[in-house]
């Protein structure tokens, strides 16, 4: 809830600042990022590509990626960012979307369990960054943010019985992985 609130605030701010600049040029922009995600006793990597439109000091796009933190997931999200500073190199950004699980074999035996089913959840990421021009409209950006992804795993444990189907007890694990995310991106 709190994350959603922050995101709404950011988006509102971006919209309000951008209306005055609507006459300025609108162009396509692609942000392709490599990230290191680190959280409680675990560090891993992620890759994302965000594509959208840039106008004035704002950028809005849709992103997709692959996130290896704890369980591999595929986040699909909306991305918004606002550039600030004299040379518009600094920016704040916010992402919100859904992360899809990639390990999902409902009904299949996974280790001890008789069934194991993954369900995705909310993906969010917001932070601050800095963009360095490289060549023409191509630039490098670096950002540091806070990211969260939710995931559910429902496992079933079957007990021996005389006649199948044997009774199954189900346990659902609801994870909320909270991480810091350090990204390097090629922007063009």
């Amino acid at each position, binding site marked *: 809830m709190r994350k959603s609130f922050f995101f709404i605030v950011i988006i509102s701010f971006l919209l309000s600042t951008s209306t005055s600049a609507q006459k300025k040029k609108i162009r396509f922009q692609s942000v392709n990022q490599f990230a290191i995600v680190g959280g409680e006793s675990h560090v891993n990597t992620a890759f994302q590509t965000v594509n959208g439109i840039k106008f004035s000091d704002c950028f809005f796009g849709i992103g997709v990626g692959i996130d290896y933190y704890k369980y591999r997931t595929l986040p699909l999200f909306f991305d918004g960012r606002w550039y600030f500073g004299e040379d518009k190199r600094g920016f704040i950004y916010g992402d919100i979307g859904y992360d899809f699980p990639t390990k999902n074999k409902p009904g299949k035996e996974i280790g001890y369990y008789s069934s194991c089913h993954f369900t995705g959840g909310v993906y969010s990421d917001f932070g601050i960054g800095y963009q360095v021009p490289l060549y023409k409209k191509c630039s490098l950006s670096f950002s540091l943010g806070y990211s969260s992804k939710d995931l559910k795993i429902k496992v079933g444990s079957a007990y021996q019985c005389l*006649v199948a189907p044997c009774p199954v007890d189900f346990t659902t694990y609801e994870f909320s992985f909270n991480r810091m995310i*350090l990204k390097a991106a090629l922007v063009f």
Partner: protein
Amino acid sequence: MKKSTKILKTLIVLFLFSLLNSCVKDTCRRIYTYSYYLPVYKTTAEVRANIKSSTPQEITNPGKIVLLGNYIFLNEVDKGIHIIDNRNPASPQNVAFINIPGNMDLALKGNILYADLYTDMVTLDISNPLNVLVKKYSEGVFPYRIYNSGFYGDSTKIITDWVKRDTTVTQSCGGNPVYYSPNAYVDFSAVQSSGGNKNSSSPIVKGGSMARFAIVNNRIYTVSNTDLNVFDITAAADPVFKNKVNVGSWSVETIFPFKDKVFIGSQNGMFIYNINNPDKPVSIGQFSHVQSCDPVIADDNFAYVTLRSGSACQGFSNQLEILQLNNITDPKLVKVYPFTNPHGLSKDGNLLFICDGSDGLKIYNAADVNNLKLIKQISGIETYDVIAYNHIALVVANDGLYEYDYADVNNIHLISKTGISKK
């Protein structure tokens, strides 16, 4: 100067990243559902007064099965025994029910039926299946029948039923789930497998491969999780406990008699006992395998062991293992066949019947154990145990008791089904 500033900024970002890493925490909630059961008690006197042939009841949770001539005795797990008149296999009739709380196993010798009643064994005269008579109670002979949360069938009161309660608990993921159920036992469900078996004088008695009772001549052998027990039934109506032998396994499941031996299936191997001295079974061989549930049957030359995964046995193998018994003290693995989830099995001549869980019933020509040939697969039923005898295969499945005629192996066909009531 400018370069050093950039390096400094980079270092600050990295420092922040690593610093903040340690500040964020993952959260995890575990939500689990489980069932627990509240016991319903009756006094021992009430229970014993009710052990008789009563009106037939619907089959809801079938267990072990024993064939006695024209009658099928089918265990209703923890409830009692259905008596099914099978004089016409095309139309079996459920004719009576014997209320035996805690019953999971049964065996027959002539007209005497032995059944467990929690920790006791009850001996019944079934000369007239419609009017069975109790001959003896052997008290406390199955002490392993202990329930979770400390419930026992004791000498003054007996658990006759359980009232199911479902509950859901939410907690953080640290530690193991806590199953809390006041004055109840948590269901890790009817975990025992049991049953009956026998080679006897007429009428023919035949039990399934999931049996935990076996009769050989004047002895009844029963297995608990760890022990092989011997009862003298020279006087059939008056069984006398004679001996207990520790099998050396913690997970004994089934017993199958063949000639002067009994084959014991456990989750970690098959054990062979010589019963030349019927009161003193002697271990003469064993074959270890990976942990798995494993009913076993045998013939003159080979033992057939099915291993299955899932359930409480926690194994990961699903296969049929065939063992050479030429040297009985050292069974050798001859061949392994993959299966889906094999349970009970039976053999009649060269025909091998295997209940393969959701894959149904599979019938093989086992004339050459190195080359089993599938004759027929009966799909669409989830099978548990089978008795193949006299051209009729009795199959216990999750939705009923099936009878197949295999007089003509090229035309194995269903002749009847006794349905199970789903509750």
